[in-house]
């Protein structure tokens, strides 16, 4: 098990604001935690020790001068390495971007700095966020802090592991088919995929643009709520950003679930889901019922088509987005006598196998003669999934499901069988297709002693309700452990 002291972000910010410790001390403490276990875990592609130190000194001066240090004062945050950081390497864990330094910051990175947070490093991921285990990184895998023989999940495995190991109280990831929620579940931390468009994607390196969403990892529900409040809200730099202010989540956290209607998704509780994972979801349903919610089983039939639709739509968008890696403007170039030959040599050398698989899958799904049967059909299935969710939300305020079918699996278990790997995202994919918010909350462990997360799903922009239920589950878990 993890022996790290995982500090709450809110406690860190409170103590820095109150002058009980300096931001420099906080950063130092986390750099020491990183120095202690990073060699085993490999959560980071880069640790920004010098820049973090400078930012902390700057913040301490601001506090000494009586300035407002912000709601995340002095809190170290680990950033998934597909978020652009000006002047600092951003690799997507790919050879094709090795050494690239973006000329601008992602909007979320700017908002974190404005809130007093300290960017402590860039975390490892499956190359271009494609994967469910962080084994597809060009720079080597990340290990699960709870059991080094297991994967941390993916693709935001580095971010999840960084929080679980106590390297940073907060982290950001991106979720295209479950890439925040699945590693959060495997590593025993809170992970949130917000409503599509709630958080600006400006400066997030695109994988599948209609599905990607940036979101928080945190040790507690309140920490995740605080981080989401900081990064959410309209951004003119992202044309898909929803024109609304950031939601007030923290203020409503304690309101409970009395009177709420919760539906347990039958299609995600059957075959393929490990019995002890199912048992934890049932325990979560009981906890919500004990807190006053009405809990019933319900059916959302089209979710069972999610994986098939996703693995036609996401690769199609990826094949288009990844066309920009041509060796001309940034990143790797492999020299060749002509530009087409240079493009071919660069992409062949620069992309790993999983990225190549998805580019080809997407190119095929979009190709003449197959477009209607695959891509067009998948887009219609997306409509069916949205319709089924809409119908469910006529009767329920929230839905409950497992986050993942199993606990963290061992390295190599699914690397030769892409389909088996893809099926591990069966519970998380549907809400990426619908654009609705969902989150994973740690809720005990399986028979193997590894963390199990349960998933809360809500209608678009109903994050407040989702977080209220998450807080109830967190309290129930604290009671269960304390009992």
């Amino acid at each position: 098990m993890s022996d790290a002291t995982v500090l709450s972000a809110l406690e860190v910010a409170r103590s820095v604001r109150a002058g009980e410790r300096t931001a420099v001390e906080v950063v130092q403490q986390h750099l020491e935690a990183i120095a202690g276990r990073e060699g085993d875990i490999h959560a980071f592609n880069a640790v920004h020790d010098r820049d973090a130190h400078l930012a902390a000194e700057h913040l301490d001066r601001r506090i000494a001068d009586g300035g407002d240090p912000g709601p995340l004062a002095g809190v170290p945050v680990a950033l998934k390495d597909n978020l652009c950081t000006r002047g600092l390497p951003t690799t997507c864990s790919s050879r094709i971007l090795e050494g690239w330094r973006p000329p601008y910051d992602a909007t979320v990175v700017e908002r974190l700095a404005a809130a007093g947070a300290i960017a402590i490093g860039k975390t490892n991921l499956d190359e271009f966020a494609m994967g469910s285990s962080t084994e597809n990184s060009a720079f080597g895998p990340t290990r699960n802090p709870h059991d080094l023989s297991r994967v941390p999940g993916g693709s935001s495995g580095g971010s999840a592991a960084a929080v679980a190991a106590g390297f940073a109280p907060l982290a950001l990831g991106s979720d295209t088919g479950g890439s925040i929620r699945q590693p959060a579940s495997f590593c025993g931390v809170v992970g949130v995929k917000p409503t599509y468009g709630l958080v600006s994607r400006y400066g997030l390196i695109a994988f599948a643009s209609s599905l990607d969403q940036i979101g928080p990892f945190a040790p507690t529900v309140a920490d995740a709520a605080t981080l989401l409040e900081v990064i959410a809200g309209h951004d003119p730099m992202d044309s898909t950003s929803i024109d609304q202010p950031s939601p007030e989540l923290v203020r409503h956290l304690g309101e409970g679930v009395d009177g709420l209607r919760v539906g347990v998704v039958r299609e995600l509780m059957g075959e393929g889901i490990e019995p002890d994972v199912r048992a934890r979801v049932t325990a979560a349903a009981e906890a919500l019922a004990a807190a006053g919610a009405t809990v019933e089983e319900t059916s959302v039939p089209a979710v069972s088509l999610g994986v098939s639709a996703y693995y036609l739509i996401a690769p199609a968008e990826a094949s288009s987005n990844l066309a920009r890696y041509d060796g001309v403007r940034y990143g790797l170039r492999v020299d060749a006598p002509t530009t087409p030959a240079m493009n071919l040599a660069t992409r062949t050398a620069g992309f790993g196998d999983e990225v190549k698989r998805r580019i080809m899958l997407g190119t095929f799904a979009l190709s003449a003669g197959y477009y209607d049967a695959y891509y067009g059909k998948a887009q219609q299935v997306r409509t069916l999934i949205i319709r089924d969710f809409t119908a469910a939300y006529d009767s329920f305020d929230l839905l409950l499901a497992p986050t993942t079918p199993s606990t963290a699996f061992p390295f190599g278990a699914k690397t030769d069988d892409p389909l088996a790997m893809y099926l591990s995202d069966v519970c998380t994919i549907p809400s990426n297709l619908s654009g609705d918010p969902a989150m994973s909350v740690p809720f005990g462990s399986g028979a193997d002693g590894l963390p199990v997360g349960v998933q809360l799903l809500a209608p678009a922009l109903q994050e407040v309700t989702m977080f209220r239920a998450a807080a109830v589950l967190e309290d129930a878990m604290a009671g269960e452990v304390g009992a």
Partner: protein
Amino acid sequence: MASLTRDDVAHVAALARLELTEEELDTFTGQLAKVLDHAADVEALDTEGVPPTSHPLPLRNVLRADEPRPSLERDEVLAAAPSVEDQRFRVPPVLGEAP
């Protein structure tokens, strides 16, 4: 159900500007065929009259006032390029061989 052949994979690889070894062609053909077989449930579905969804939000054009403002620093952008000449990205000949 169209089943994926080795030639199909070679064709899409070429379209995607990827070069595969003979061994990779075999591996990828098997793996991609398996994924597409799984997608047969979607292909077989009767979706007559169901409109497609390409995006979770109703997309609209977003315009700002047409006022000049600074863009990215040219030197900073060019500094990231593999090859630069006269403030431009430099590439090998697009047509034919280098002289």
